[in-house]
């Protein structure tokens, strides 16, 4: 683009930059306040004058959180559920995305439309039939009934699939068909091409996609609340968070510390994949 360095233009840009920085500060403020309140001593959190800094940072709130019965266990449960969902749904979605982008077959368009429609289904509404389904399934297959981690893993795999397939299509399509032909000319089997050539090439896209399945699983609190009826040892983090809400007054320091503990893994995951995420979204919406 042509550059004109008029004074008005420069002021315009400075104003825009000031606005951007101010917005960034406002957007980041809740997270800053969360971490800050987690580090404040209890007297300051529940004090009359909330200050945007603390002179006596303490880890008391975190101690209360981890001292709470089974909190570490809830944390591991959350990790286990989210980890399993990410890996399984990535592999399953990769296969499905390959099928719908690399092959022409009857009902292909119908299937694609169904993947799109499946994303609209209000998951929360399905809690009711899923509750009964898992209750009945538990009688036959012990690992997936109510009160088990399987009852959280299975529905989340299913619900993250449609979006993952939809988003992965762009990544699979980006791999040139000539590569496929060359691989077969070199005598590669279909399985070999799929796992040794296509899979590594699509992997960045898989990582970007997995952010969404990770987040939706990690965040979930409805399924955890509904399906883990009595076996509290199989609860996940969001449940542990709500323990600090009390009728006689909320332990805000504890809530903020537990919130921090719950937010950090997602933030780390996000920071690791953010480049790929942005290009992945570009790919998903452009194709």
């Amino acid at each position: 683009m042509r550059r004109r360095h008029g004074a008005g233009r420069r002021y315009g840009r400075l104003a825009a930059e000031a606005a951007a920085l101010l917005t960034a500060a406002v957007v980041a403020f809740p997270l800053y306040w969360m971490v800050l309140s987690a580090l404040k001593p209890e007297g300051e959190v529940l004090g009359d004058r909330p200050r945007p800094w603390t002179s006596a940072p303490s880890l008391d709130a975190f101690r209360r959180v981890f001292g709470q019965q089974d909190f570490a266990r809830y944390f591991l449960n959350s990790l286990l559920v989210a980890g399993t969902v990410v890996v399984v749904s990535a592999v399953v979605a990769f296969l499905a995305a390959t099928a719908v982008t690399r092959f022409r077959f009857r009902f292909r368009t119908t299937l694609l439309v169904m993947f799109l429609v499946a994303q609209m289904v209000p998951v929360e509404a399905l809690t009711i039939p899923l509750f009964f389904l898992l209750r009945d399934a538990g009688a036959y297959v012990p690992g997936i009934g109510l009160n088990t981690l399987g009852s959280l893993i299975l529905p989340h795999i299913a619900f993250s699939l449609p979006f993952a397939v939809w988003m992965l299509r762009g990544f699979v399509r980006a791999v040139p068909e000539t590569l496929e032909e060359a691989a077969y000319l070199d005598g590669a089997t279909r399985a070999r091409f799929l796992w040794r050539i296509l899979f590594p090439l699509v992997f960045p896209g898989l990582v970007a996609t997995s952010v969404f399945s990770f987040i939706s699983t990690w965040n979930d609190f409805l399924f955890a609340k509904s399906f883990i009826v009595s076996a509290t040892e199989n609860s996940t983090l969001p449940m542990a968070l709500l323990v600090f809400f009390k009728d006689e007054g909320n332990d805000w320091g504890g809530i903020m510390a537990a919130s921090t503990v719950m937010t950090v893994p997602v933030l780390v995951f996000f920071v690791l994949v953010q480049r790929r995420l942005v290009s992945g979204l570009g790919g998903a919406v452009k194709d």
Partner: protein
Amino acid sequence: MRTHSRWTPWIYLAPALVLLGGLLLYPVYQLGLISFLEYTQAQVSGGRPTSFQGFGNYAALFRDGQFREVLLTTVLFAAACVLATLATGCALAVLLTRVRALPRLALMTAALGAWATPAVTGSTVWLFLFDPDFGPVDKLLTRLGMSGFDGYSWTYDRYSAFALVLLEVVWCSFPFVMVTVYAGIRAVPAEVLEAAALDGASQWRIWRAVTAPMLRPILVVVTLQSVIWDFKVFTQIYVMTNGGGIAGQNLTLNVYAYQKAFASSQYSLGSAIGVVMLLILLAVTLAYLRLLRSQGEEI
């Protein structure tokens, strides 16, 4: 290209289809089925046989004044969330194209942070920010001279409670819009813009005639995603208004269905509400698909 067996794509699709069939399609069918039955605690425990009600549950639902109000509230609330999210996201995306690397990085990072925050923790944090006793917002507003906010409880009043939830929803969902639209603007080839500028087109004209049309598909996608997400807001309402607000003043369809089913064991009414939601979102989706088709997009 090597000829594949006719069944190869179906083998690849099999795991996905089995999972979706068992855990999505079948539950949807069950949801519909339960909505036509009488299904309460008595039937669940086997104390009484289930009986077919036809559209009885739906009739009961639409006779229920609270349901009609919740339905209207949900539509209005979702519309407000979508508009606010889109306006914020698009405005900030344009802003991002006008600034140098450092402010851009700052805004991007902050936005990604908000995006990554789980809905549960986002809700608790915003609740704490607006807490009447210990939150900084009320204190700040009071300090700024608005004494009415001294110890003001945001969740007590129906509209301020919705406003608080809306703020949280916009906070955690504008980054998706911003990042996507920004990527879309950046994808407009520089040569095209340059050519337009050389032809003497004004900034506004370039936006109208070049950038906006190229952004259309992206805008359609983010709008649809926002509609779907915001119509289904559950966690924020549930956590921030403690399950739907005082006397259910902040109920939305999703929370209402959940409360009907799991709090008062009226599973068939809860399912009927779920079906109504499903149909509304289905209508939105179909409208979207038609829009895509009319624009000549291939899926």
